[in-house]
């Protein structure tokens, strides 16, 4: 089962390697990882997509919470959530027809053309896993030179937050 974990960790040297090290030393898998600043100074949010059943995910979260500089570790996927990934795709566009067809796909997928030469384009696409995967799949027939993906970030929906807030007051 695919799970997206959200880990709030102090923005200090070495803390990311502590989390990554925990995953490798305990044999957990990392499909994607992304890290960024949060609203709060000194704290980063690390989003990790991993494979594992509920028991494994629970164990991963508990292991993360043992770390002195981890303030919170949760599975975003256990609640309604929104997940996004961005991809930059260097795709061949050798003929005017190809260019038009790619432009078409870009419009359908609400992607963006961010660079272009007479025979290639760089396309920026974002969305959930299915959308980005399908878009890349459709570009395959043109011949792609490179795909760069950011890994996923995820956030619980406002409804999910409301749900947990209600639970807390009850």
């Amino acid at each position: 089962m695919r799970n997206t974990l959200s880990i709030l960790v102090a923005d200090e040297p070495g803390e990311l390697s502590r989390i990554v090290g925990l995953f490798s030393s305990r044999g957990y898998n990392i499909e994607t990882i992304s890290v960024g600043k949060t609203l709060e100074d000194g704290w980063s949010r690390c989003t990790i997509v991993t494979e594992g059943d509920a028991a494994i995910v629970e164990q991963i979260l508990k292991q993360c919470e043992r770390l002195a500089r981890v303030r919170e570790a949760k599975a975003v996927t256990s609640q309604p959530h929104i997940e996004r990934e961005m991809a930059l795709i260097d795709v061949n566009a050798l003929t005017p027809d190809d260019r038009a067809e790619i432009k078409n796909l870009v419009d359908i997928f609400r992607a963006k053309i961010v660079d272009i030469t007479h025979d290639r384009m760089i396309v920026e696409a974002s969305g959930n896993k299915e959308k980005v995967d399908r878009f890349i799949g459709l570009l395959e027939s043109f011949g792609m030179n490179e795909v760069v993906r950011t890994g996923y970030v995820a956030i619980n929906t406002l409804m999910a937050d409301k749900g947990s807030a209600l639970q807390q007051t009850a």
Partner: protein
Amino acid sequence: MRDVATVVETVETAELSDTSANKPMRGAEVLVRSLIRNGVDTIFGLPGGAVLHIYDELWRFRDEITHYLVRHEQGAVHAAEGYARATGKVGAAVVTSGPGATNAVTGIATAYMDSIPLVVITGQVPLPVIGTDAFQEVDTFGITLPIVKHNYLVRDVRDLAAIVDEAFRIAASGKPGPVVIDLPKDITAHICDGPRRCHYDAASAAAPACTDTQTVDIIADRLINAERPVFYVGGGIVTSGAAYALIELAEKLAAPVTPTLMGLGGFPTAHKLSLGMLGMHGTYAANMAVSESDLLVAVGVRFDDRVTGKLATFAPQAEIIHIDIDPSNIGKVKQPHISLVSDAKPALEALLAAIAERGDGPLAAGKAARLDWWKKLSGWRNSVPLVCETSETEIKPQQVIEELHRATNGDAVIVTDVGQHQMWAAQFYPFKRTRQWITSGGLGTMGFGLPAALGAQLALPEQTVVAVVGDGGFQMTNQELITAIQYNIPLKVLIMNNGYLGMVRQWQEMFYDRAYSEVDLSISPDFVKLAEAYGAQGLRATTPAELTSALRQGLEHKGVTVWDIVVTKEENVFPIIPAGQDTRNMILK
């Protein structure tokens, strides 16, 4: 969430309580003062280039901190562990960068596996040259990352005091463990004119109270009504100081108790409710009891593979209750039916209170329902007791432990190395109290025994401390004998000499068709002469009669004694449940 640190940005100089706190001082002095502030009066170490400033300050503060110079950094960390294991206090060690740090790694990992509180200071090359492959540079932070509870690379002298304070809190709080502070040389020379970062607001070191009354009530009911209960208790009992609560609870319920290797001493071995140790080399009664119990109450344990054997058939009929301070231990290897995250002592005390609330009626009815269980337990105990082999002509290793027990009135602190002698000591020395038994359980570190005993003896100067070691492990760290001599630490080292790496030989005999591949240690130094060369008393025994007199003579000696006890070469540890198998595959002899 435990140990969660929130960085407090306000500067608070009050954190440094000593009067000279506001006087500018170099990092090394900040470090040593911080160690003193955290209660360190004993530190083990070995100097080197990167820690010269620190050693300069240790020299200035030598009346407040006694430094013990070991002969190898592994010895420093094991000695600090022995000190910590004997007292429950945080052990401290200091080593230099590069090889000093890598030599310390084995000790740090040993402490990590057994949840022993340590603070290890490692020197580091100056910050500006980190990453340039400088002389004696190694990435200590990275190397120790997976074997510490927490570690630091200090980047600013103004953070140092707060880091040391937090390191001690983290090491001792919750489930204890080692903390490494990697300290670049230039930081120890930098002048600190006050802390930049005041403190890390880590959770307090005090054990959390047991607040989950609902679960406590459920467990209390299960305990009262269980027909075939067993307490399976581990190092958590020792760490938490829960032995008395455990004894009271077991007695109230008339429920049997089996300790793990790390839990030995947590329940008196000679107590009528004790089944002895469980697991791979546990007693027949303890292992049978677990496999037929209907309620397994696991307290301060982690379902180690040396205890459970084959997981699927461990305690197959039991409802499992797991009480542990570390949430990640719950369900890590075996999913319990009921779990309680709590320190052992408050949990057991809460259970005692809950049981008292229910009155004597249900308790008496429950005890009556357990009479059949006790018939079974007694039957197992009597049918396959632990047998101390004896012989007129040669010394049996089990006999050595029994004789040692007699000669020390059962009061000695026993520190072991790892291997057959360790298992025989666990089986045949009945322990009366916690912290009377010190051993490397999780990591199984050969070479642990002698230096750990050194640290324990220093912590407990009034007590007899005996390092029981094998001829293999002894040779891994015997250089620390000179440390004992130098500081007049009256250590007793008992070498059970069978001329083999005995446990490996036993497995080769039992599981590898007696192919004794590279286990022969018959070419060894003369241990008596070796002891004498160090300035210790060396005594050899090769017959049972010599054993008795040698033990007496050595225990009477005021200084360091090394016994070379020549035992039966090919004796095996029984019972044994082969790795990954279950009670049904227990080999009794």
